[in-house]
């Protein structure tokens, strides 16, 4: 029995830390470093949204922008804009997209290429509360801002109140920096 529990627990821990989405953690977790404590499972709205033109099959993890495992989210930390009334590359109604942010490099399994991804926050409304994702690939401390997801990138004109996060393709990574 003990072995069972250990096994289940380990696989659970793996699963939640990779694909766990965690609901509203308020200001606290804005761009924050959260790993879900709780056993949470399947994406909430898989397949509910029409795929954007040129996007892969939303029923696959590589292609579902409402899943933490979606390829663009390799360095994300926050609520997915696509679960909050926006899409993976546009903000929910009534919010404003921050102009500044940090960038990561993610591997697109569809074409086998690495892309530079800009994780622009959506600002001006309080935290969305759905589809929290935290993947820290490429993440560095705050003193290295262009690579830090611990910073609340809602600042300046958009105001500091954080709602959710997008993942926007800037272009093919010229050299792999992962």
């Amino acid at each position, binding site marked *: 029995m003990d072995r069972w529990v250990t096994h*289940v627990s380990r696989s659970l821990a793996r*699963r939640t830390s990779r694909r766990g*989405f*965690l*609901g*509203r*953690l*308020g200001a606290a977790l804005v761009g924050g470093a959260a790993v*879900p404590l*709780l*056993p*949470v*499972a*399947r994406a*909430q*709205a898989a397949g*509910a*949204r029409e795929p954007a033109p*040129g996007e*892969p*099959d939303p*029923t*696959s*993890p*590589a292609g579902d922008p409402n899943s933490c495992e979606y390829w663009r989210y390799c360095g994300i930390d926050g609520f997915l804009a696509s*679960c*909050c*009334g*926006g899409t993976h*590359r*546009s*903000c*929910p*109604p*009534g*919010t*404003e*997209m921050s*102009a500044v942010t940090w960038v990561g490099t993610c591997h*697109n*399994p*569809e*074409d086998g*290429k690495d*892309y530079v991804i*800009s994780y*622009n926050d*959506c600002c001006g*409304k*309080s*935290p*969305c*509360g*759905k589809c*929290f994702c935290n993947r820290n690939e490429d993440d560095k401390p705050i003193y290295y801002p262009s690579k830090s997801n611990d910073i609340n990138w809602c600042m300046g004109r958009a105001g500091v109140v954080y709602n959710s996060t997008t993942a*926007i*393709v*800037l*272009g*093919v990574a010229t050299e792999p920096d992962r």
Partner: protein
Amino acid sequence: MRHTCGARIIGLLAIVVCASVLFAPAPARADLAAEPIGRVEPLSAPGPHSVWVSDGVNERIALVDLDTDDMRGMVDGGWGITAGVFTADGRIWIPETHYSRGSRGQRSDVVTSYGPGSLTPEGEVPIPAKRAINVLPVGNAALSDDDRFLAIFNMTPATSLSIVDLERRSFAGEIETPGCSLVYGAGARRFLMFCGDGAALWVELDDEGNAIRKIRSERFFDPQVDPVMEKGVRRGTTWYFPSFEGLIHEVDVSGPVPTFSEPWSLVSDGERAAEWRIGGRMPLAVHRSSGRLYALMHQGGPHSHKDPGREAWVYDLERRERVDTIELRNPGLTYLGVSMEFGQGWLWPFSRLYDWALSMTPLGVASLAVTQDDEPLLVTGSEFSGSLAIYDARSGQYLRRVITGNMTNLGIQAPYGGATR
């Protein structure tokens, strides 16, 4: 290399097909183009199964599409429970209270408006900083039937109404209502209030928003014997208010003064003996076109008028009799907005733990609502979860749980898809 591949394996043939996909050379593809920065989605018109759900902890309302389980957007309110007021032009009006330093400092009360197709504030009307803050998601603000005036209940503890002219977007004035509280729409320029002795107050406005008539009715119930709950619903020109003991008081607001008919009972003598009671935060809902009334029922003692419900009892308002009973499921648990799908996806027998755990906890259904379209959904929410449970409102069949992103689901408003009153 599609990750879906594995999921689609059914037999040997499938494996072969799948493998060929896996190992086939990737077709040459153009790079993904750079995408624009700064795009914000507009708000498309909410469908009939869209509801606004109030979160008291996060002080906001979230718009949730129950068909797709999508959160469509949200509106922040101020201190207390946020609730929207919906005008026929597609606008949303939110009475709000703010402090300059969060929980202290200067108090400001305003009504903020959101235009159709947008969740960006389009303006605000300052109002006297004395609106009532209580735990009801209804009865604190009401619209005149012509959508011209918004009345907001004040309590300092002296009671009054602040009248907002929505056309001129200005504060029109204050109406003293000593001894009478809360506010309900009751005609083109009329509002209904409850007085402490069991009477109703009838307030009629002129074109400037001033009170031209204040009529206090006879007492239509005795609050010492069987208080009428403030948690009423409206269908056409009739308001339905339940009493603690399960009597429905109908108030007809079509005439020059409100009229009250003989109350009728939600529970039979036998059910009363078995201590079946109405209770909760939003214990009553009405589907207007069919005349179906939904009441949240539990078994409990005399002081259980706020206890959560275990069943929804369905009544035909014409015949004033029960036509159906819906056993309610637990709306599910969430933690900080996350579904605690405790054990789902685990190996059997652990996988059954979630439903089992839910079965061990009180239901916690505090609120119910029904959409107004011809294929209505019954929506039930909890004060201690961000999850809703939804049912086919006609058959009573349980459909699924929907996560709102809220921490609590205290109030549920379903203003689309049918008559709003």
